[in-house]
């Protein structure tokens, strides 16, 4: 034993272990073997496979976990289905009581949860105790509040139904809370699968939920590996999948659920930038880096793993970082004075080692502290790479370990460019005491969360989620609830709505060909409808045209047959119109009003055109034009009123939840309502700053091509609206597969919807499709907030203050 005089001399840190005994006793009470929690009871399926869950700090087995199969999942989903109507019927206040009880149960058993988490995951007890578990309790409290308020705050919302949730191993219980709390608050029931490395706290939570009186079937926990997750995703009885994990698996899930009409939210990987700008407090920046990349061993999806530093600040920052790294402590996760615990598993450790080796081979300069990490268990030292180029693999790949790369930039513009030079877009942090600079840079970064002078700060009141290939949907806050509800109006329509009857006029045209044509007194002056790209009318690349038929089979004109190159050009033109997003909302509103004004001036002509092609009465044609003008006005009105929120997060800061345009949206318009369908989709998109590439009604594209002159005379900047006529599904699929299109809206067939969703997996663009169902375009339910939500994504900007 070390003597007191010795310690007095060296002033070293000593051991400060948290006891594992209560957690080990809990494992013993279960005989070290866990079943599934289904329909309010523990279930050990006969003949089930089991696998071991290990303590990453020692490699020793903690318990045996059941490998659930499709059979058990089916039982769990059915239990959830049976429980759902009752859970919803309980009402907001009833559900609030349950969520409140769950929050209290988490608090009462907070230390046991923390110790089990640390044993199973390897994260320092200090983090599970002081960060994860308090955030879990907070999440249930916050959502107890949403349950209470749902009836009044979201009167039109109903639950999605049965939700399948799959969570990762890096924040096992916290991710469970992020998934379960909003789902239950809004009246859904849940089948949740924890990661196979870390099932224990989910099982312990199920036990607590049972004790707290949660009704059977409302929460079901099934365990297993990726096969179990895949079976859950594939189950036909699931209404929604919520997944947090890797981008690769997110892509598989997107593909697997394509066309299934399962609602989907994905929270995926990241390579989040950490920007150090002039005017930064460098000593605080160093602590920021500690929180960014040495929190949870760097196994954090939003870890600030790319330090981008102004060239002049690089040398002092690197010196300070290296000095600080010496004082970090790696070791027994149960030690209360350890900063960095164990890596989750040998496979992850090997991945880290491999990427670090690759970084060295690529010429980056590696720095690790002088001390060494424990050799038993899965440990890796904090690592800093300097002299890193954006092209090197370690600057692009998510390492998911305590490894950070440092790159330099020359100007703010270059900093933003580097920050956005990634497929991901989960989070970013910005360091400078210059608030002007910080708030200038924050909106320019493609990320769902931007922390100013702080990092890795979370709260239930603030939505968390990604841009780009970091996924879609938000967790937490008002914006997170959207993922678990649907509009009651939409529900009433669904099923009842079916695609309008469609007789191909071309067939009628064949019949007409035989009939004698009445010769015109004087031939009409030819009008050639081209494509509309970048504010100019352009001939189709194909050099082909497609006839447009009137309802009686008569050919009323021809439109260009757009192809993939036209789409490519249109997407490029749309990106060049990025100034539109920065225009003031007031200016955008003016343009939309002007569009309405100019459309109104030609109302008679458009009415006639609609009637001519679709065969509706002149009155109905006029009504569609009138409705289109009103809709333009609706979105002109919304343009400067689609406000964000300031969330009440429990820190001294303002958390700004800002709706931002998604970017370039591809829109495949419905066959029906050629003008109103077009306007109902394009107007909200552009009102909020997006640029669009539109495939107009395949049936009546001339209505859209007639709009060129209206658009040209209404001050719509070039490239904001691009129109490509041609075959809807073919063009929609080119758009869906285009990696520089950020969202795709599709109104067509079920198979077309499925294709769009499947192809969107490439860059994980947001999709909004109709699964072949009809839409009442004249109805008020076809406008307003639901569509504005689709046209924007929420960025949360955290701005601490105080002098």
């Amino acid at each position, binding site marked *: 034993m070390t003597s007191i005089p010795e310690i007095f001399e060296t*002033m070293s840190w000593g051991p400060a272990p948290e006891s594992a005994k209560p957690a080990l006793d809990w494992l013993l009470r279960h005989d070290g073997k866990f079943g599934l929690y289904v329909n309010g009871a523990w279930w050990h399926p006969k003949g089930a496979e089991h696998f071991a869950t290990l303590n990453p700090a020692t490699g020793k087995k903690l318990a045996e976990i059941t490998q659930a199969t499709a059979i058990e999942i089916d039982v769990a989903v059915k239990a959830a289905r049976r429980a759902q109507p009752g859970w919803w019927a309980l009402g907001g206040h009833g559900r609030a009581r349950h969520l409140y009880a769950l929050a209290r149960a988490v608090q009462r058993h907070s230390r046991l949860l923390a110790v089990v988490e640390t044993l199973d995951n390897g994260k320092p007890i*200090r983090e599970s105790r002081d960060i994860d578990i308090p955030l879990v309790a907070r999440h249930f409290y916050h959502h107890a509040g949403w349950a209470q308020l749902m009836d009044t705050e979201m009167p039109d919302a109903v639950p999605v139904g049965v939700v399948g949730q799959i969570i990762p191993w890096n924040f096992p219980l916290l991710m469970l809370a992020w998934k379960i709390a909003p789902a239950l608050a809004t009246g859904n029931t849940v089948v949740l699968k924890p990661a196979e490395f870390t099932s224990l706290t989910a099982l312990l939570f199920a036990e607590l939920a049972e004790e707290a009186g949660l009704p059977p079937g409302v929460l079901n926990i099934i365990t297993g590996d990726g096969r179990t997750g895949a079976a859950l995703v594939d189950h036909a009885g699931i209404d929604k999948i919520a997944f947090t994990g890797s981008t690769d698996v997110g892509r598989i899930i997107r593909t697997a659920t394509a066309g299934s009409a399962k609602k989907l939210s994905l929270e995926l990987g990241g390579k989040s930038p950490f920007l150090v700008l002039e005017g930064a*407090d460098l000593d*605080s920046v160093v602590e920021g880096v500690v929180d960014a990349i040495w929190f949870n061993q760097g196994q954090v999806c939003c870890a600030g793993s790319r330090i981008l530093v102004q060239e002049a600040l690089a040398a002092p920052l690197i010196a300070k970082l290296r000095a600080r790294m010496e004082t970090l402590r790696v070791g027994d996760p149960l030690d209360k004075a350890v900063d960095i615990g164990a890596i989750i598993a040998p496979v992850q450790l090997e991945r880290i080692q491999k990427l670090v080796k690759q970084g060295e081979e690529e010429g980056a300069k590696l720095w690790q502290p002088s001390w060494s990490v424990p050799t038993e268990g899965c440990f890796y030292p904090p690592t800093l790479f300097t002299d890193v180029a954006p092209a090197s693999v370690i600057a692009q790949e998510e390492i998911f370990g305590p490894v950070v790369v440092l790159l330099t930039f020359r100007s703010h513009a270059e900093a933003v460019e580097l920050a956005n030079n990634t497929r991901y877009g989960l989070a970013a942090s910005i360091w400078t005491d210059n608030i002007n600079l910080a708030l200038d840079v924050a909106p320019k970064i493609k990320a769902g969360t931007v922390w100013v*002078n*702080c990092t890795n700060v979370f709260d239930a009141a603030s939505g968390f989620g990604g841009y780009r290939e970091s996924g879609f949907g938000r967790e937490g806050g008002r914006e997170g609830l959207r993922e678990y509800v649907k509009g009651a109006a939409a529900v009433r329509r669904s099923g009842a709505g079916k695609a309008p009857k469609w007789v191909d006029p071309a067939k009628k045209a064949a019949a007409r060909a035989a009939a004698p044509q009445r010769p015109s007194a004087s031939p009409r002056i030819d009008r050639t409808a081209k494509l509309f790209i970048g504010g100019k009318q352009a001939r189709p690349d194909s050099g082909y045209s497609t006839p447009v038929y009137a309802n009686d089979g008569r050919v009323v004109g021809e439109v260009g047959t757009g192809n993939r190159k036209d789409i490519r050009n249109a997407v490029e033109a749309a990106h060049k119109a990025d100034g539109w997003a920065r225009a003031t909302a007031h200016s955008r509103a003016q343009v939309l009003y002007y569009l309405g004004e100019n459309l109104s001036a030609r109302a008679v002509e458009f009415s006639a055109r609609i009637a001519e092609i679709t065969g509706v009465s002149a009155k109905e044609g006029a009504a569609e034009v009138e409705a289109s003008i009103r809709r333009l006005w609706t979105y002109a009105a919304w343009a400067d009123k689609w406000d964000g929120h300031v969330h009440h997060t429990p820190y001294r800061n303002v958390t700004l939840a800002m709706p931002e345009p998604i970017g370039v949206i591809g829109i495949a318009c419905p066959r029906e309502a050629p003008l109103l369908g077009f306007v109902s989709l394009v107007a909200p998109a552009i009102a909020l700053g997006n640029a669009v590439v539109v495939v107009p009604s395949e049936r009546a594209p001339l209505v859209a091509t007639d709009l060129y002159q209206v658009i040209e005379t209404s001050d719509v900047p070039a490239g904001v609206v691009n129109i490509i006529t041609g075959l809807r599904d073919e063009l929609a699929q080119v758009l869906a597969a285009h990696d520089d299109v950020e969202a795709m809206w599709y109104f067509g067939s079920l198979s077309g919807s499925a294709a769009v969703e499947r192809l969107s997996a490439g860059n994980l663009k947001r999709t909004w499709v109709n699964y072949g169902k009809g839409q009442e375009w004249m109805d008020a339910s076809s406008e307003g907030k639901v569509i504005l939500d689709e046209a924007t994504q929420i960025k949360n900007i955290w701005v*601490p203050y105080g002098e």
Partner: protein
Amino acid sequence: MTQPTLAAPERPKPLPFTPRNPGVPLALDLVRDVHVNTSAVERRAASFGKRRTVKKEWQAAWLLRVVTLMDLTTLQGDDTAQRVRRLCAKARQPVRQDLLVALGAESLRIKVAAVCVYHEFVSTAVEALAGSGIPVAAVSTAFPHGLAPMSTKLAEIQASVAAGAEEIDIVISRRHVLEGNWPALYDEIRAYREACGDAHLKTILATGELPNLREVFRASLVCMMAGADFIKTSTGKESVNATLPFGLVMARAIRQYLELTGHRVGLKPAGGIRSAKDSLDWLGLMKEELGDAWLRPELFRFGASSLLTDVERQLEHAVTGRYSANHRHPMA
């Protein structure tokens, strides 16, 4: 006086030990180019109590170290010579001998770092501490407000030094900071330093009366440039005294000054540190931000009057496993 070059830091390296900080010319550009983010500083300061802890033997050893870092202080209007003599006796024998024996620590010859009094009691204390090796520190320059004529303040320092004080704790003129008059502050501290002669100079910033953490950092830099041996947080008389955010900012200023000049300056938090746990958080701060050299009385002191009792209680707990009571430990 030597004039070290003010070069940008490379990575921190062990520097040759300089017995005293000689000061450097006032470098106003450095003083102005200071960034301190309050929220971030507060988050880091809060981490010392949460991320670090010492238990069992380590806690006992660290608490013994705390005792040796104390400037045992009495600065009351009703101080008397007898009261000061009692304090000095406690300074010689701050922890019960039986506890030291039980901890196996009697060889450490635990005594406090200094005794801190008003000028009136310097000679009393010097006499009472004769042979102990414990220096006497005198608060000076019209402590705690500092608003006496300069000649009076310089005379006070000289008188205390003449009476045997080896350390002089002066108060800065807060108005110089509030007015941004850094040359005036620099000149003031230089004059005090000269008046001190061989006595060590501790400059009290009275951080609770400065407008923000940035000005605390700047005032720290100016005092060090002017030749302070220690920078000290507070008089103990302000409404806000030694908090960890103040300490963190001052520690970082010390680090910057060290990187720039190679001179080590000490830190003395004073006022408001009453519990053993608080004092351990401070040691964690110093160890992590500045290194082990700042866990020694040459570079770190606690200005405290009631801290010692709580430390003694915790030491007894370390021996017996029972929670102790104040009255079981001899008072000063």
